[in-house]
């Protein structure tokens, strides 16, 4: 188990190294270069000055050299400067990451219980009317574009009913309740987006588990229905579901980008989006790399959790 974890972690580290090179190249393919952005709109720029600046900042070096310099600096925690905010990249990304983390944790706190409940209820009578309603809900959820979901929520809850703010965030130091009101719609949007897939997995896993012999045994020895469904059914059905939850971090990051852009939240996704729009190369690169690390880490975690939760699985 320990050897397996170590080997998988090393593999993941290697993948991150390779992906950092790929992402560095991709960012390099975006229009312009850092010097263009820096001197944009400056009337006294001459081609000689541009060349001098390029040499000064090392932009004229071959790509591999530039990547190597970036990598060495990045390993010491220096991801360069943002060319829109004129501050170190980490100073911009760390608060944004915390904000996104808040959004993601709250979303999971809503979507996991809801999915477990709806999925299990639906699985008790496959093709019954409850199951049909839940299936339609899940299908709608996986088929809605998340940005449109956000628009509809804004129209209904912010414009028509005027219950909640349409976006933005509270002033610093506002009471907790007021801070939370700004999070309700984003969390609701992201949760509706992630729950559909999760409900489908819980339902499928529960149907399979409830058909197992040990459930019949549990019923036969006269256990109460809720004990059968919760203790014997759900606990066993949770195994594959845990994996799916861990794996969903990647799509959660994608969803967070759209949700934050829609509600004007200053999170990671919005930071990456703005960085790409404003050609803020260093921020975009660091943000993308962070998202990749999170996705990889979550799939690693999913594998390890599986071996830990299910002793029958031997990880070699």
């Amino acid at each position, binding site marked *: 188990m320990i050897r397996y974890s170590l080997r998988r972690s090393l593999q993941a580290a290697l993948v991150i190294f390779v992906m950092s090179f790929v992402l560095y190249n991709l960012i390099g393919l975006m229009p312009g270069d850092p010097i263009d952005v820096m001197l944009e709109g400056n009337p006294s720029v001459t081609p000689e000055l541009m060349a001098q600046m390029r040499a000064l900042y090392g932009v004229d070096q071959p790509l591999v050299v530039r990547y190597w310099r970036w990598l060495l600096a990045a390993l010491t925690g220096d991801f360069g400067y943002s060319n829109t905010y004129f501050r170190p990249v980490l100073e911009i990304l760390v608060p944004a990451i915390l904000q996104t983390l808040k959004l993601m944790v709250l979303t999971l706190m809503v979507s996991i219980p809801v999915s477990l409940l709806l999925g299990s209820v639906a699985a008790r009578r496959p093709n019954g009317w409850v199951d049909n309603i839940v299936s339609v809900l899940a299908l709608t959820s996986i088929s809605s574009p998340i940005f449109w979901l956000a*628009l509809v929520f*804004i129209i209904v809850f912010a414009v028509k009913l005027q219950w909640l703010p349409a976006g933005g965030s509270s002033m610093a130091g506002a009471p907790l309740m007021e801070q939370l009101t700004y999070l309700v719609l984003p969390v609701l949007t992201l949760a509706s987006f992630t729950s559909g897939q999760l409900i489908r997995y819980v339902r499928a896993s529960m149907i399979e588990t409830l058909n197992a012999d040990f459930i019949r045994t549990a019923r036969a020895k006269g256990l109460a229905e809720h004990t059968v469904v919760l203790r014997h059914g759900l606990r066993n059905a949770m195994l594959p579901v845990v994996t799916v939850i861990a794996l969903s971090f990647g799509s959660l990051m994608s969803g967070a980008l759209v949700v934050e852009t829609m509600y004007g939240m200053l999170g990671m996704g919005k930071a990456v989006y703005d960085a790409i729009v404003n050609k803020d190369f260093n921020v975009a690169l660091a943000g993308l790399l962070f998202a990749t690390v999170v996705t990889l880490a979550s799939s690693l975690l999913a594998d390890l959790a599986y071996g830990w939760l299910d002793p029958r699985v031997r990880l070699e």
Partner: protein
Amino acid sequence: MTVATNLTLEAPQSIWNARWNRFRRHRLAMTATIFLILLAIACAAADLIANALGVDPSAVDLFERFSPPSSKHLLGTDEIGRDVLVRLLHGGRISLMVGLLATALGGAFGVLIGVVSGFLEGRTDAFLMRFTDCVLSLPIIPLLIVLGAVDLSKLGLPQAWLNSPSVSFWRIVVVIALVDWTAIARISRAATLSVKHRDFVQAARASGATRLYNITAHILPNIATPLIVAGALTVGRVILFESTLSFLGFGVVPPTPTWGNMLTNAQELVTSAPALAIYPGVLILLTVVAVNLVGDGVRVAFDPRSDS
């Protein structure tokens, strides 16, 4: 089960007949298919419909901003007086075409990777699957945005071609195909592995069939079922990606309408004209639901055991 009293044999039916009959009995899937066909016809006939109604889809008319539905503009007009219905139909063309083309392109690549990987096994397999894992570990939407923002002239593509209006269409097809092939690669690898060791493939090999012959004649037809189902699900996902990208401004660019970029301005119009924010989204939702239902119907039709 009732006891069979009538012992006459049913007429033998081909496998495609049997599949079609099972598909037809799946009412939701049939409804979804009919909806998609009607939608495709309406989108293809967008210009005819525009002519019949006497509207010009790209004509800006500032005296007719936000006009309510009328006999000329069946769904009203948008913020610069263009007909919403005709624009929706034109947008549908793009969304459906991107969905099909990107799935076909990404699917072809995925099948290639998966079949080669499963057929050759060993080092090639390990390498290709690690590569697939790498792509799978990337956050999709941020990656699509970066790919959508790439300056194509830095790739050495001819400037003349880059200025043509169809570039943003083909670019989004390629960008999505580059990212969304991993699921199909994994599925075709798993299916190839299970077919490869069956006796009829081994027998063909023993009688001297080349690898290429074995792959085209034996592997591909036998892994088609899971691939068709995965393909249908991919079309739905691709339509969602396309709309998200176009909405964020990295996909198909205005004035060419798509369901995604028609919503770009809607965010500012939620108070004045909420209907403009509803129509394109409802069409995306209905189309993706329909595509998913068709996929479900195909799965049941091709593999009756999976319906339990």
